[in-house]
C-alpha cells in the first residue's frame, strides 16, 4: 500500500472527472461560438457584436434595434443555425447508441441505411397522401418508421451473413443503396408533381429550413437525448457483451430495443428536415471518445456538442463558399462525405489489419 495520496484511485478518478467537466464546458463555449458565427455569416453580413446585442435584446436584457432587414435575415438564419446544430447533435448521439449496441466501431446511421430508409418512407407517404406535408407529427412518425425499418432489415441481413462487424456494414451499404435509389426516383415525383422541394434532401442541405423545422428537431432531440442519458450508465455494461450486462442486473435485450428505437427516432426526424447527411454519426463518437473517454454518461453529451458544432460549422463553410463562388446553394451533405469517407476508410484499414 502506498501512502502517496495522489496515487490513490479515487483521487485520480475525481481529477479525471474534473478535467471532463472542463472539457465539456469548453465544448459548450465552442458550440455557442459556432452558433454566433453562423448567425453572422451570409450574403448580408451581420457583425458578431450586432448578433450578440440582437440576441440579448431578444431576451430583454438590452434594448437594441438591428433594423428591419437585419431582423428578417437573423430570423431566417436563426432557424437554419438551430436546425444544423440539432441535426448534428441528433446524428452524433445516434452514432454513439448504434456503435455501442452493435459493439461495432464502424456502425453509423447513414451507413446502416437509416437515413435513406427515412427518406424513402417520406417520399412514399407524400405521394400517397400529399396532405401529410402539413402535419409535423405525421412527418416525424413516418421518418421514424422508415429509419427503424431500414435498421431492422440491415440487422436481419447481417445475421444471415454471419453477424460479424463487417457483415453489418456490408448489409447496411446494400440496404442504404437500395432505399436511396428508390428515394431518388420518388423524390423527382414529389418535387415536380407535388411541388414540394425534395431533391435537395438527397444531397443533405439546410437551405430550405423554416421555423417549423426548429420545433420538429428540437422536440425529437430533446426526447432522444434524455432517453440516451437515462440509459447511458447501463450502456457502459452493454459494450462488454449481453452476458456482462445481464450479470450486473440489466436486461440487455430491453436496453438494445430502447437504443435502437431512440437512434431511429433521432436519425429519422433529422433526415426529414435536412436530408441525407452521412458520416457525422461515425466521426463524432470517435473524436468524442478521444476527448472524454468511453463512459457513456459523458460521451453522449460531449458527442451532442461536437456533432452540433461540427455540422453547423460545416454549414457556415458551405454557405460562405456558395456566396463567394456564386454557385447558389452547395449541399452540406457533400462536405460531410468528403470529410467523413476518408475517416471511414481509415477505420476500415485499422479493422482489416487488426
Amino acid at each position, binding site marked *: *500500500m502506498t501512502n502517496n495520496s495522489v496515487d*490513490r*484511485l*479515487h483521487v485520480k*478518478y475525481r481529477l479525471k*472527472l474534473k478535467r471532463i467537466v472542463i472539457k465539456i464546458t469548453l465544448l459548450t463555449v465552442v458550440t455557442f461560438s459556432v452558433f454566433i458565427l453562423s448567425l453572422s455569416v451570409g450574403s448580408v453580413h451581420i457583425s458578431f457584436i450586432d448578433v450578440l446585442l440582437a440576441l440579448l435584446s431578444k431576451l430583454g436584457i438590452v434594448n437594441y434595434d438591428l433594423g428591419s432587414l437585419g431582423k428578417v435575415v437573423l430570423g431566417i438564419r436563426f432557424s437554419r443555425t438551430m436546425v444544423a446544430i440539432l441535426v448534428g447533435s441528433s446524428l452524433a448521439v445516434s452514432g454513439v447508441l448504434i*456503435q455501442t449496441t452493435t*459493439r*461495432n*466501431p*464502424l456502425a453509423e446511421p447513414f451507413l446502416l441505411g437509416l437515413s435513406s430508409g427515412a427518406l424513402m418512407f417520406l417520399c412514399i407517404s407524400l405521394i400517397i397522401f400529399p396532405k401529410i406535408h402539413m402535419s409535423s407529427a405525421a412527418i416525424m412518425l413516418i421518418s421514424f418508421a422508415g429509419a427503424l425499418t431500414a435498421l431492422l432489415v440491415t440487422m436481419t441481413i447481417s445475421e444471415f451473413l454471419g453477424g460479424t462487424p463487417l457483415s453489418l456494414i456490408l448489409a447496411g451499404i446494400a440496404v442504404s443503396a437500395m432505399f436511396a435509389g428508390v428515394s431518388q426516383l420518388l423524390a423527382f415525383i414529389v418535387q415536380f408533381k407535388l411541388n414540394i422541394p425534395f431533391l435537395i434532401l438527397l444531397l443533405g442541405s439546410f437551405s430550405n429550413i423554416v421555423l417549423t423545422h426548429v420545433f420538429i428537431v428540437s422536440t425529437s432531440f430533446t426526447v432522444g437525448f434524455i432517453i440516451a442519458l437515462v440509459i447511458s*450508465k447501463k450502456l*457502459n*455494461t452493454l*459494450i*462488454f*457483451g449481453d*452476458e*456482462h450486462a*445481464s*450479470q*450486473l*442486473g*440489466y*436486461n440487455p435485450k430491453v436496453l438494445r430495443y430502447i437504443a435502437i428505437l431512440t437512434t431511429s427516432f433521432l436519425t429519422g426526424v433529422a433526415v426529414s428536415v435536412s436530408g441525407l447527411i452521412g458520416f457525422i454519426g461515425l466521426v463524432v463518437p470517435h473524436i468524442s*471518445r478521444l476527448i472524454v*473517454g*468511453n*463512459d457513456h*454518461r459523458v460521451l453522449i453529451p460531449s458527442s451532442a456538442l461536437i456533432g452540433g458544432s461540427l455540422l453547423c460549422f460545416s454549414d457556415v463553410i458551405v454557405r460562405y463558399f456558395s456566396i463567394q463562388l456564386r454557385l447558389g446553394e452547395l449541399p452540406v451533405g457533400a462536405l460531410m462525405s468528403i470529410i467523413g469517407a476518408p475517416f471511414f476508410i481509415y*477505420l476500415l484499414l*485499422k*479493422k482489416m489489419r*487488426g
Partner: protein
Amino acid sequence: MVKIKISNLSFNYDSVQALKDVSVEFREGEIVGIIGPNGAGKTTLLKCIAKLLKPHKGVIYLNGRKLWSISNKELAKILAHTLFEVPKGFNLTVLDFLLTSRYPYSKGLWETEEDLAVVEEALTMVNAKHLVERKMEELSDGELQRIIMAKLIAHQAKILLVDEPTVHLDLKYQLEVLSILRRISKTKNILTVMTMHDLRLASIFSDKLVLLHEGKIIAIGKPQDVLTEENIAKTYGVKVKILKHPKAGLIIIPLSTL
C-alpha cells in the same frame, strides 16, 4: 449461506442435447472444477447456473429459491461470472471494465469513493494496479486473466462462475491465477465453480470435481475419486497411467488413444 442445488437439468441447443438430467449440489467455501472433453457441456452448465440459458427441463435452486424467480437485479449482488467480450476499436480501458462491476451496489449516477476503494483493493490483490489506465484489447493473456480476477473480487459476489481461467496461460500465470482464485474463495467463504481443461491443475485446486461427458455427469467427488484411469478412458478416450505425488497431486500420464 450459499447453496446451489441442480436437479434433473436438461438443456438443448436446437436439436442437440447439451445437458442431460444433470443433478448436483454445491455449497459455500467450495471450489468446484467442471471437467470433461470438448463439447461435454461444461460452459453450458456454467451458463445455466448464471441464468444466461433457460433450462428446458429441471430446476436450479439458489438457497432454496428457484433461480428463474430471482430478479437480475438481486442476482447481480450474489453471482459473478467471467463471460464478457472486449469489442475492438473502442479503446476500452481496464478502469472502464472494473467500474461496471460496482454497478449492482450503486444508487446514484456516479461511483462513490467506496466503489473506487474496492476496485483499488482488488487491483492491489492481483498485483495489477499499474494496468488501470491500459486498454483492454492491448493486455497480454496473463494480464487479462489478472484483470478478470480483479473484476471477480471487486464484484463482491458470493458465487463465482469462472470459465477456463487458465486457458492460453503460461505455467507461472496458471498457478498465479488459480492461487488468487483459491485465496478469495477460502478467505471470503465463496462458492467457486470453474470449467477446466487441464486435469492436473483441476485436481490440485478443486475441492470437488464434476466430470461431464456428452451432457451427462459421469462422476462427482474428490479429485482422486473422479480422476481414475477408468473414468478418463471412458470420457476422454485416452488410456492413461495415474500416479499419486504427495505434493503435486495426481500425475496423469497419457499413454495412447483408445
